[in-house]
């Protein structure tokens, strides 16, 4: 019974030993970012790593979830929110590193349907949302009580007069990507997501774009968090607004200021 015991011990040591890395310099910068930024940020992180060799760690979720986690002490160095309100939430609590907050990106709000459905709508006041849903269909977006895309969606539908009906048929998703997934699967008749999310998916099509004045301007503030402020974090934030980065943002469909 000696060999199995020895192998087991070896396995335990391998599992429990701290992993050493070749360039074990600074710990990776942790970025908490809105779900809609995932594809673009991952591309940018790869470029950044190629240029500087520094690794980044991401957590993508609804800005609401991330802001609450940061409030409770989550170890993020950078926060990228999909609306100003959640960044304000942290600023009011003194959690932002002074002078690092900047709003670089914009986006557009779109109504999407499963790709197989040919639908083109003019999203003007009084448009027929009931026709989009059908008799028993539901539509999906982020939970309007806290998810930014849901808030924008509620504003837009309210301006266009469709909210009273829409509210009764809404499925509330935890973030915009979950909402997108439901439409991709064909389970939801329609969804409201960002234009950038619709572009990232081949299984939905844009049925209409909400007029920019039907909702608050979509703005993505970025900031370094005071508790984990570091030169590495600030450097990455600078990189995100560099010319090379702007190319990437635009390539994904974000509006760049």
């Amino acid at each position, binding site marked *: 019974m000696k060999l199995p015991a020895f192998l087991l011990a070896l396995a335990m040591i391998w599992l429990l030993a701290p992993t050493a890395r070749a360039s074990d310099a600074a710990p990776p910068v942790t970025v908490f970012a809105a779900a809609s930024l995932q594809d673009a940020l991952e591309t940018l992180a790869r470029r950044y790593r190629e240029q500087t060799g520094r690794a980044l760690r991401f957590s993508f979720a609804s800005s*609401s979830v991330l802001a609450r986690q940061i409030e409770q002490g989550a170890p993020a160095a950078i926060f990228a929110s999909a609306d100003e309100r959640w960044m304000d939430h942290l600023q009011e609590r003194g959690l932002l590193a002074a002078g690092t907050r900047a709003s670089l990106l914009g986006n557009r709000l779109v109504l999407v349907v499963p790709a197989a459905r040919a639908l083109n709508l003019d999203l003007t006041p009084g448009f027929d949302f009931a026709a989009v849903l059908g008799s*028993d269909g539901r539509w999906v977006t982020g939970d309007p*009580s*806290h998810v930014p895309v849901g808030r924008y969606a509620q504003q837009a539908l309210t301006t266009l007069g469709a909210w009273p009906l829409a509210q009764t048929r*809404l*499925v509330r*998703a*935890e973030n915009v990507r979950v909402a997108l997934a439901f439409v991709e*699967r064909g*389970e939801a008749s329609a969804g409201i997501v960002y234009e950038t999310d619709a572009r990232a998916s081949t299984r939905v099509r844009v049925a209409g774009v909400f007029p920019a004045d039907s909702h608050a301007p979509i703005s993505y503030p970025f900031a370094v968090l005071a508790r984990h402020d570091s030169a590495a974090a600030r450097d990455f934030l600078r990189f995100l607004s560099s010319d090379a980065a702007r190319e990437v943002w635009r390539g994904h469909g974000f509006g760049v200021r």
Partner: protein
Amino acid sequence: MLTAVEIEALRLSLQVALVAVAASLPLAIGVAWLLARCEFPGKTLLDTVVHLPLVLPPVVIGYGLLVLFGTQGPVGGWLHESFGLRLIFTRWGAALAAAVMAFPLMVRAIRLALEAIDRGLESAARTLGASRLDVFFTVTLPLMLPGIVSGGIVAFAAALGDFGATITFVGNVPGETQTLSLAIYSLTQTPDGDAAAARLVLIALALAVGALYASELAARRVRLYIGRA
């Protein structure tokens, strides 16, 4: 005390859990019988499949249900086309998710009760002329009853508490699928939702404790029966 939304979530939770347990009870008794009394090829496989919801991440179960029972899935699509029945985004889908998660607990409790029955009693009934069906309904089932009740109550509590499978399969629809767990989850992310979330947490706690206590009382009766038998 409680807002309308919170009362809605509570009522929906109770309704969904009740439907889940009631609908899966006959199947649970059948499966427990198979596992306790029969030997057949694939028995271990059945045992494993039944216990999967206990060990798989609930989101995986929810995803599986989505693929199978969503309107684009094989079973869900058939239901939707043939009967106009939709499970996704409805309380019936929520009941299905809760039932799947609670099923192993029910089966375990009923199987234990079955295995504890003295087969001698059943043989005695047969020698006295009772048919197999008669034996089941007049001897076996009454002896199983405390186990069924105990299992049902634990399953009820588990069904009440399901989150991952429910939110992945039927989403968060207040009034249709927003059970207590989903409501608490939403509230903890809403800016001023902490107080409301705390209230619902206390209610969920009270329900869970009450259910487990009742289940324990029922289990004690089983032991009494075993003692007598």
